[in-house]
């Protein structure tokens, strides 16, 4: 059973509208790498540089914050990753 990555609304323009993408991987980083292999335009939307997510990107693993060191967190088949963008408006 793969890992399901839930794509934030603002990023679905890069995933052909897909809300959930199934990937393989043993860490969050591997899963995101495999997501980006399927949808290369996501890389710039998620990463400021190699191994550094943009400051407004939050990763939740099985509905819990994966911060800090989220990219190195281990995942197993059936896990759920949510990519969320931080909000600042009021």
């Amino acid at each position, binding site marked *: 059973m793969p890992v399901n990555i839930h794509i934030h609304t603002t990023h679905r323009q890069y995933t052909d509208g897909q809300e959930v993408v199934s990937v393989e991987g043993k860490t969050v980083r591997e899963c995101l790498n495999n997501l980006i292999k399927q949808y290369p335009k996501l890389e710039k939307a998620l990463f400021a540089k190699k191994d550094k997510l943009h*400051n407004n990107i939050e990763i939740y693993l099985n509905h819990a914050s994966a911060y800090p060191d989220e990219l190195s967190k281990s995942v197993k088949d059936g896990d759920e990753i949510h990519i969320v963008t931080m909000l*600042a*408006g*009021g």
Partner: protein
Amino acid sequence: MLSETEKVRYDRQIMIKEIGEIGQERLKKSRVVIAGAGGLGSPIAIYLTAAGIGLIRIIDHDMVELSNLNRQILHWEDDIGKNKVDSARIKLQKINSEVKIETYCEKLTEQNVSFLLSGFDAIVDAMDNLATRYIINRFAVENNIPFFHGAVRGFEGRAMTILPGKTACLRCMYRGDIPQEKFPVIGVTPGIIGTIQATEVIKYLIGIDNLLINRLLLFNGLTMQFQEFRVLKNPDCDHCGSISRKE
């Protein structure tokens, strides 16, 4: 003690067993400060005023502009050009003249945060930028004042309640600065999130459990879904990591 007029005015909420006359008296004795009188600040202030909070302080340095009116429901066409806090105070006093409304037309900064936010039972986040939110978060954590966070963008919003020393704070997930932007928003989004924040404030003041602590609530109006994520206190947080709540 509640007056006879107050017992009539708040009858429908006093009927709620979790509130009752004791809860209403707690609201009457409470002091709440709302940082911002815009999209979030409008519903927060309206519902807290209607609920009978004893004293509400509102802080905002902006004037009302035409482009505010799609979401900042405390401000009307006639208010364009007025200070937001003056516009807000007039409406709120008409909603409930029993509530004391204090206003400060000032920009919240590290220099004046202590003067503006000290002595309150709750601080409500109705800001439009992260930098000021972090100033408030630090003050709230260091001074042991519950902080009720909310933020919006487009059809999306989020809310979380912070009890200093006990729960994750806004800074626990800090990854670095995010540039301030002119953010898109439809008025119903801050309407929903601000109302959730006001609900949390009322529950906290009365002593009702099940607050949004260590729980980040996300709302997506496009899919009409709420999601909840668990957030834990970060021991290395530069705001709350090394202190504990003073009892």
